């Protein structure tokens, strides 16, 4: 596997929740390739969401968790940073602008559609009105939701359908031009048609941003992703190209899970 075009890399990464005795994630080694979609699958409680939430340190909203090992973020200029070393709020803010996140349930803010997309941009310091309008329009077009929203940008985002809300959230994240977007089961609260639209969107945005997606849906992982990580009980059981994982897994465990023998 080519090592030179990584955007993130986890090295011997372990994670323990505050107050827990045992580590929830044990010595994970996982490369995230640039402009590819990496899927994380595995049965409930295997730690895939926990892993995802470490990659933008959103865990740090709740104090007392323990990280070990390294998570390197490689920037476009070639520099790298171990994000586990970050301590100050400003550094976290910068990290989260580079590594965005989409949640299971759509999370529109209680404000207009325009302001939802502009929110992150304003936080990042953009004040110029025309630039804001430009970036919002671009982001909404990028999330394939411009046609549905261009006449109602000033209406509340809470009036949109669930699928639209989720695409708005993706637009909101894409607007910041992050290096990586983390998706935490982004379609499990949506109907099949909206799910299709979101999947199409994710496949499209990968030319601009690297994607890591946690999913319960194995078909989704096989349809969408270039690489698949299969996790089991806090371990990374197998990681490879998606085709290999689904057609020719090395581990018996992976095969059993993929063929539906457990999980």
């Amino acid at each position: 596997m080519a090592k030179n075009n990584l955007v993130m890399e986890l090295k011997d990464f372990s994670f323990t929740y505050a107050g827990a005795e045992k580590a929830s994630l044990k010595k994970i080694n996982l490369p995230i390739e640039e402009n590819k979609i990496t899927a994380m699958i595995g049965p409930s409680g295997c730690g895939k969401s926990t892993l995802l939430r470490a990659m933008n340190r959103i865990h740090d909203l709740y104090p007392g968790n323990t990280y070990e090992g390294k998570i390197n973020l490689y920037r476009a200029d070639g520099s790298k940073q171990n994000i586990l070393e970050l301590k100050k709020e400003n550094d976290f803010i910068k990290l989260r602008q580079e590594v965005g996140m989409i949640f299971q349930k759509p999370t529109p803010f209680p404000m207009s559609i325009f302001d939802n997309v502009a929110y992150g941009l304003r936080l990042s310091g953009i004040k110029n009105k025309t630039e804001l309008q430009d970036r919002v329009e671009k982001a909404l077009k990028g999330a394939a939701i411009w046609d549905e929203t261009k006449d109602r940008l000033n209406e509340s985002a809470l009036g949109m359908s669930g699928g639209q809300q989720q695409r708005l959230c993706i637009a909101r994240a894409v607007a910041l031009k992050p290096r990586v977007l983390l998706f935490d089961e982004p379609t499990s609260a949506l109907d099949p048609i909206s799910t299709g639209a979101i999947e199409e969107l994710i496949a499209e945005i990968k030319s601009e941003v690297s994607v890591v997606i946690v999913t319960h849906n194995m078909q989704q992982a096989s349809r969408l992703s270039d690489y698949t990580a299969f996790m089991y009980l806090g371990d990374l059981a197998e990681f490879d190209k998606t085709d290999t994982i689904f057609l020719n897994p090395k581990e018996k465990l992976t095969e059993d899970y993929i063929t539906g023998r457990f999980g």
Partner: protein
Amino acid sequence: MNRLLLNKIILLLSTLSAVIGIGFLFWILATLSYKGITSIHWTTFTKDLVEGGIRNLLVGQFTMALMATVVAVPVGMMAGIYLREYGHGSKLASIIRNLSDVMMSAPSIVIGVFVFALLVDPFNGYNGWAGVVALAIMMIPIIISTTDNMLALVPTELREAGMALGGSKHKIILQIVVRAAKVGITTGVLLSFARIIGETAPLLFTSANNQFFTMDLTEQFPSLTVSIYNLATYPDEASRELAWAASFILTAIVLCINLVGRFVIRNKK
């Protein structure tokens, strides 16, 4: 015993209890409306207490309640935000939350006595500010509790989504979380306003009463509720009629505020 029969007896008893309860309520409202409406004249609203009207009382009561709201809303909201967003799970927060709940059920006369010792006795006399403070003290725990509860209803994902876009904690709280809880908090403020606008005990020996029109909060301050208390004890018919009129108007005001509060909830949810 026959289960069907038992069912019917229980049904009968609970219906009867409901009818008795509601009956008394309507009796009160009917008496109040009848006596109140027949006692209201045009001059009731245009003249001050000294001339047999309640103009100064209405203005005084609202002034004190509004000033109390201006004091209590920021304090109560910030305390509620602390409890839910910053001190969540800490010992200090749970102590404050418990104390605030105790304060909410503190007898209002006790609050009146406290403020009397604090702001009336040392300043040689009843004054409007003391009334404002007493009402604010009544209001703060209600607003703390409402803010706390309404913020608890905002899904965690919304906070995380804000953080994931690069927001700092205080910005997310003020710009997103509080906004998401806005309707609930506004309703809470309205209902607590309705609660304090009808209070007598905290005002009895803080702001006391004033027969004349004044907007000077350092003087004794006109109060509708205290006037009702006074007027009802006077022997002359005119005073008692005015007490009925004032009671009816106060009830109507409280009812209106409550209805507006409910209307806001229903339309926003």
